[in-house]
């Protein structure tokens, strides 16, 4: 170790991004990540520091790039769906929904009402689970360890429900084009009701630990101010945009899956700081509970899959008795269904913002082009603006409040 030397970061590729003072050595270039516990994954930040004040923050992404878009182009529409669980691993059901809505729009397929209501329940449960992880890690980054443990306790209950319905805790692939994989088991309703029963008190508990905690308030008030104009220009969406005072939620503005029947509020704040983002997300969990409650109360009976056999495989029971069902089964699982030569863009509100899918068909059984407009990507880009002039410790709080998922960014 004696002759080990610290390697200097070559400034060449970043020459146009750092100030003149970095070249003369007046300010310091510091590498944060890609393996840093507070960057929530493999994110590298190149910081230009004057003492402890951030002059420039240059994010460097792509460490988790796995070519999901390219891989999806090589698979049939049904098989490509498993790739999308791996995008935003905090929100796999939301990704499934975004993909299925795009496919259904492309091939013009209808979804029965029961499947729609179940999709809403599952996606809202997923939103709560995702916000719980966010809340836990947000607390952890601000040195509140116990919140993390409490949040993961409740999240585990929600993941148990996903395991009950799909067999998997995270990579569910439960929502399929035309409906769901299969109907939920009989224990489902009771398990969801149990969560509905305990969650409000648990959210109060988190709030009791955090909302008036002076340490949290000190570290988040007026930190990372994001104005409405900058947020829109950078394409920031979701809770971050709503914390900056823009009332824009795709569930309200462009209801899909029957969101228009549910009565819920879209929480917004005017401040645009880290604390506002915290408030918005905590309130969103309560609103999600309301939606689940209403959807569960009037959950219709009936099939959970479209009966259009050209796109949805027939039930197993039919295969032994119907030749036609056997043919459809065989065709769907070997060749897959064919999509017309057209393109669609469809977006849903994921826990992080607008999750859009651009899907193009070329008349064959594989998607010609899939583009994921992932919300974390655009939300992260704004970080170089909102961290300017803050301390390094504030960067941790700001980064936590953005709620990035690297799988979502790097795809």
């Amino acid at each position, binding site marked *: 170790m004696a002759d080990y030397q610290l390697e200097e970061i070559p400034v060449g*590729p970043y020459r*146009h*991004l750092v100030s003149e003072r970095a070249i003369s050595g007046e300010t310091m270039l510091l590498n944060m990540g890609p393996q840093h516990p507070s960057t929530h994954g493999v994110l590298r930040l190149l910081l230009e520091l004057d003492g402890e004040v951030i002059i420039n923050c240059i994010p460097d*992404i*792509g460490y988790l*790039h796995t*070519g999901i*878009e*390219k*891989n999806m182009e*090589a698979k049939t529409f049904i098989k490509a769906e498993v790739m999308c669980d791996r995008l935003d691993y905090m929100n796999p059901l939301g990704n499934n929904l975004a993909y299925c809505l795009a496919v259904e*729009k*492309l091939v*013009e397929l209808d979804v029965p009402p029961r499947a729609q209501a179940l999709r809403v329940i599952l996606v809202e449960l997923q939103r709560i689970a995702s916000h719980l992880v966010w809340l836990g890690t947000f607390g952890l980054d601000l040195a509140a360890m116990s919140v993390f443990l409490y949040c993961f306790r409740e999240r585990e209950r929600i993941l148990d429900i996903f395991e009950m319905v799909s067999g998997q805790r995270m990579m569910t692939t439960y929502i399929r084009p035309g409906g769901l994989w299969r109907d939920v088991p009989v224990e489902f309703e009771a398990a969801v009701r149990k969560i509905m029963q305990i969650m409000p008190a648990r959210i109060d508990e988190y709030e009791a630990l955090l909302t008036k905690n002076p340490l949290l308030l000190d570290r988040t008030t007026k930190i990372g101010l994001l104005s409405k104009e*900058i947020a*829109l*220009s*950078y*394409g920031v*969406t979701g809770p971050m945009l709503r914390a900056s005072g*823009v009332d*824009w939620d795709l569930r309200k*503005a*462009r209801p899909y899956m029957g969101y228009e029947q549910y009565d819920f509020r879209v929480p917004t704040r005017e401040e645009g700081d880290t604390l506002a983002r915290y408030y918005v997300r905590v309130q969103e969990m309560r609103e999600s509970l309301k939606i689940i409650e209403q959807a569960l109360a009037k959950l219709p009976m009936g099939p959970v899959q479209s009966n259009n056999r050209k796109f949805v495989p027939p039930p197993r029971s039919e295969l032994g008795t119907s030749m036609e069902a056997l043919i459809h089964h065989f065709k769907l699982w070997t060749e897959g269904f064919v999509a017309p030569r*057209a*393109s*669609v*863009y469809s*977006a849903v509100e994921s826990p992080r913002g*607008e999750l*859009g899918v*651009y899907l*193009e068909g070329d008349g064959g059984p594989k998607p*010609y*082009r899939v*583009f994921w*407009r992932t919300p974390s*990507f*655009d939300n992260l*880009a*704004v970080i170089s603006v909102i961290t300017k002039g803050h301390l390094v410790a504030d960067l941790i709080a700001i980064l936590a409040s953005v709620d990035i998922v690297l799988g979502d960014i*790097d*795809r």
Partner: protein
Amino acid sequence: MDNRLDKIVQVLREQAGATFEESRGEVHVFINPPQIADVLSFLRDQHEFSLLSALTAVDYWPQENPRFHVIYQLTSLTQNLSIQLRIPVNAAQLKVPTATGVFAMANWREREVMDMFGIEFEGHPDPRRILMPPDWEGHPLRKDYPLGYEEPQFTFNFEEIDVRKPYAKE
């Protein structure tokens, strides 16, 4: 088509020589590459399309003319409208003017298109690769770029693969 969108499309047709098509409730407007920044700022300033939702590209290889479409998905929050702009890009001239001056969001998304498709955005303030490593060769989302796989090394082909297998140095 929505009346408000209809008016916008008419203006674009007269002033920018745009063509349009409608499919599945979406409006796609085709415009020429040099006009993109003007059209975007026209839509943002005069028709309240304040959010550039998505910016991406599609490769139509082996078709050369146009080889790519660059796609801009715009959203108006106040009117709750969407419009899609598409720019055909020919294989002979892979250049599009940048939109970073109008929407800051275009900065990273244009870098992504540049990285994945090799389309150059003229006047981009930070033209580096974003997802792939800086020394990567080729543009992965092009249709003539193979998906790629690694050949399994067995006893019978061990030597053959070993010769051309890249090992990490030190």
